[in-house]
């Protein structure tokens, strides 16, 4: 075992892992984090805490992770290279690890132009792959990116993202290979709506044996309404929502659309768990955390293993 991470242990024991996420509040309201995390208690193995998602300022991921940790739950520290240079990232990683946070997700992040501070400087000292390399070097070599020794190096279980639906498609497996080579331990994918394309990507992943080197958690997000489906389809970069899906949701009356969305989500999980190489699920119920327990139960992923 490389780390103390519960997620690592769940995966190592051969269980399908379940993670979910919590978007921190836009203000100093820690009780919001507690409310959201409490809903997930017992239903997921670890909780991702987003880092200024969509480039909108929120409570820092580190602070919100700490609150979750203090509740006796397992946070996953998300960090983007957009806002911090390598000094700031490494100091936050040591800080987080000092508080027992041992799992993280290394991302480049959405461009500032999407958020509430489009005028902000855009850092990108590192890209996500160099970021993974840095965290691995900190863990396995006990060295900072700059080469100096670290006292009690942080042992992070290292996550990364993959978007099988972005272009160019044929580059998406090589890109995953690069993340594996850089040292990522697990992957959380972009939300899967286009199951066929996802399976095609997984085929490529298996052909290269990458699924044996990295644990892939398929991302799923339940749709609340046809409006959300259309928004995801047209407005979110790198999201692939097939027309049939939009049609299916629009085919049911408005007050039944949320239920239809949950149903689709559960069906997706049931389908994907049979795909060789899928090691778990990352359920991103955006501002809809209360539905996660139901999804986990209905998908047959409950109870969670005791580790």
């Amino acid at each position, binding site marked *: 075992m490389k780390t103390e991470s519960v997620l690592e242990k769940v995966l190592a024991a051969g269980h399908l892992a379940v993670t979910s996420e919590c978007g921190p509040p836009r203000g100093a309201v820690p009780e919001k984090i507690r409310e959201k995390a409490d809903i997930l208690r017992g239903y997921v193995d670890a909780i991702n805490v987003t880092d200024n998602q969509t480039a909108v300022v929120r409570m820092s991921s580190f602070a919100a992770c700490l609150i979750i940790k203090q509740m006796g739950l397992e946070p996953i520290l998300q960090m983007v290279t957009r806002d911090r240079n390598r000094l700031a990232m490494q100091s936050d990683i040591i800080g987080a690890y000092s508080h027992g946070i041992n799992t993280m997700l290394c991302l*480049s992040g959405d461009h500032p*132009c999407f958020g509430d501070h489009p005028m902000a400087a855009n850092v990108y000292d590192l*890209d996500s*792959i*160099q970021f993974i390399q840095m965290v691995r070097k900190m863990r396995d070599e006990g060295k900072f990116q700059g080469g100096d020794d670290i006292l009690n190096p942080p042992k992070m279980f290292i996550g990364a993202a993959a978007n099988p639906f972005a*272009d*160019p498609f044929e580059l998406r497996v*090589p*890109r995953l290979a690069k993340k594996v080579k850089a040292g990522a331990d697990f992957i959380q994918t972009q939300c899967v709506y286009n199951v066929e394309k996802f399976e095609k990507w997984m085929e490529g992943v298996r052909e290269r044996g990458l699924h044996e080197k990295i644990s892939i958690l398929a991302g799923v997000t339940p749709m609340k309404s046809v409006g959300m489906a259309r928004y995801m389809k047209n407005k979110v970069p790198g999201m692939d929502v097939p027309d049939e899906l939009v049609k299916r949701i629009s085919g049911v009356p408005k007050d039944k659309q949320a239920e239809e969305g949950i149903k689709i989500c559960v069906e997706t999980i049931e389908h994907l768990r049979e795909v060789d190489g899928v090691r778990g699920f990352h359920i991103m119920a955006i501002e809809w955390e209360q539905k996660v327990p139901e999804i986990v139960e209905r998908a047959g992923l409950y109870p969670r293993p005791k580790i």
Partner: protein
Amino acid sequence: MITAERKPLDEIIDYIKPFSRILLVGCNECVTVCAAGGRKEVGLLSSALQMAFMKEGKVLDVKELTLERQCDPEYVEELVPLIDQVDAVVSMACGCGVQEVAKRFKEKPVFPAVNTKFMGASERQGVWAERCQGCGDCVLGMTGGICPVARCSKRLLNGPCGGSSNGKCEINPEVDCAWQLIWDRLKSLGIEKTYEEIVPAKDWRTSRDGGPRKIIREDLA
């Protein structure tokens, strides 16, 4: 080349409001090519400024001169005979030219008439696009001759990010995804395998992050 765009007329007028005699200086290099501050633009701006003053019932005396290269002290000397006849200088060169003039004439206010934009190339008539950030350690040899530092919105060296869609960048469907271009180019060169070599974290010291830069060529100095 260095590209520039003329500032809004009102901003330029604001600078020179207190004065009645100005020297308007163009440059015959990059800003001429990108039609921002060459001889022609000097003439146009001169008329526009004089007209604006006239509307206010004032007179503006404009001396016009377009230097061969405003970033070169040797050419800036050509302003010496004119400088005493004016209250202020308005430069239509890039920021380098403006600063050379300011350095040479310590007692004269100097104002920029253009916004210096980027190092770029002409895509077609009237369109220029960024190509180089001057990072000081060229990576074009690894990326098929397309620069991710200048042309990827997140300057990713191991891209593309998850926002690349139909060849376009997530920030704007008008912007090409640099990594799509790089991938296509690597493929047409038959070297797409090289994509899988990880490009290590960049040493930004050679870029602006290391402080203002200087080149000293002992053999020429």
